[in-house]
């Protein structure tokens, strides 16, 4: 097959492929950010601290632990030791804190099961503790009204940011495909002179551009997929194939599937518009 892809066409192919790669990589990156934010949000809502106000001392802590064992929403409970408190304080304060300097704490860490949107988790737990003769507060992660909910904004930014970037890449693909139509201008002119309609002439060029876009999109998507796998392998060097497959399937395939389809549609649309313009020019010399 002589001159199957030569000169300008080859450059155009790689332009489309790298645009598709960038869009697919942005999509994969957005999916990774989305997953991290969702996991962070789940973890944030799945954890709380119970502060035991009364009875004071070990008796109060024992009663609270006993009550929490049957409390709704609570999947596990563990008293906060001085060592654990020192570790947390060191994480946030940055300085090394001696556990021996920390007084006895009336705090219990609890893990929570997912609850419905209008469920008063704290109220249910406080009630259960009260039935066990314990007066306590439950300290949950701050809600959206208190200025939290950053994860939601991060997820939205990732989604719309990657969508906007994908559209920008589609625009680049579309403009680049006009170059292909310009290369085929003589074909459009001849077809027009021979009586081809606008849709016939533009359709032929658009089909060619769409096929080129599909091939370039497949190449770009494949490159993005391989880059994503390489990054995962670098970040998680000991992860098994099954674990990686669990991490990426099935939603993370969406950007890789969208890349060739989007590139084909954008290239076809760009080439069709340009070829239609050339047809209009060729059809009327006056």
């Amino acid at each position: 097959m002589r001159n199957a892809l030569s000169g300008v066409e080859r450059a155009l192919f790689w332009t489309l492929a790298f645009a598709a790669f960038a869009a697919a990589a942005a999509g994969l990156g957005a999916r990774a950010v989305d997953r991290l934010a969702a996991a962070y949000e789940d973890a944030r809502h799945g954890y709380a601290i119970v502060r035991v106000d009364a009875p004071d001392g070990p008796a109060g802590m024992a009663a609270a632990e006993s009550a929490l064992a049957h409390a709704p929403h609570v999947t596990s409970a563990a008293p906060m030791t001085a060592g654990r408190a020192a570790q947390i304080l060191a994480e946030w304060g940055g300085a090394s804190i001696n556990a021996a300097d920390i007084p006895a704490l009336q705090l219990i860490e609890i893990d929570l099961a997912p609850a419905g949107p209008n469920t008063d988790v704290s109220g249910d737990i406080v009630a259960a503790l009260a039935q066990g003769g314990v007066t306590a507060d439950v300290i949950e992660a701050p809600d959206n009204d208190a200025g939290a909910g950053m994860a939601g904004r991060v997820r939205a930014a990732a989604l719309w940011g990657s969508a906007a970037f994908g559209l920008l890449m589609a625009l680049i693909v579309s403009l680049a495909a006009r170059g292909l139509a310009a290369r085929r201008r003589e074909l459009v002119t001849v077809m027009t002179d021979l009586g081809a309609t606008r849709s016939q002439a533009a359709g032929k060029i658009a089909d060619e551009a769409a096929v080129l876009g599909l091939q370039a999109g497949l190449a770009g998507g494949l490159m993005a997929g391989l880059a994503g796998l390489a990054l995962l392998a670098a970040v998680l060097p000991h992860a098994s194939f099954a674990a990686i497959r669990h991490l990426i399937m099935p939603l993370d395939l969406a950007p890789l599937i969208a890349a060739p389809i989007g590139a084909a549609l954008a290239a076809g649309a760009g080439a069709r518009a340009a070829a239609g313009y050339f047809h209009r020019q060729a059809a009327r010399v006056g």
Partner: protein
Amino acid sequence: MARPNNPDLDLYASGVLARLTGVDSGYGGATVLVDIDFEARIGEVALITGPAAAGKTTFMHFLRLAMPLRAGRATILGVDLARASPATRARVKRKIGYVAENPTFIEHWSAFDNIAMPLKLGGAKAKDYSPDVRELVDFVGLGAAADLPVEQISGAERRRAAIARALAAKPELILVDDPTSGMSPGDGRRIVRLLAEMRRVGAGVVIASQDQTLADCAPFLRWSIDRGRLTRIDEAEPAEAYE
């Protein structure tokens, strides 16, 4: 079902391929063709001569539906140009064979593939059109050059290829702009005779040229154009005189 009464189609059915009455046309702000009256019929060959920049090429562009109708009335192949949709214009164009003064080709395709293009556009398959295209190649005397890319053939061969392409779809109206340009006088006259022969297969032929000596090649209806005004010169001599 009876066909609705359409005077343009009746005109076409009676053998009138093109009738222009008081037509003006031009480019941008300039009116190039002025008050043109013209008629082309099946089996007739019209020769339009005139000096450079007289409006010959513009007139050919008008007949191939590439120029706007600014005034007057033009009916080509049964279609009133003032009312024709783009799709109708495209359909009419497919029945017109046009040989430009500087024909455009797909340069990296072979002359054979370029000649076959009107047939491909019409949906014909290679195995069906190949014998016809070979016959056309022989008819215009293109020979082995037909298998070369157009960018590699000579100017005279390009012209022959353009003529073959214009005839490929068996057009009803054949328009030829300056057919002898770039050819030896002998070759040019042979080509003009060859084109005039198309009248025998029921086509109408319109040839524009600066060369008035072509008039003795075939039984032409002669027209003269100057500064955009077209005038009839004389009646055609009987075809037998050229046999």
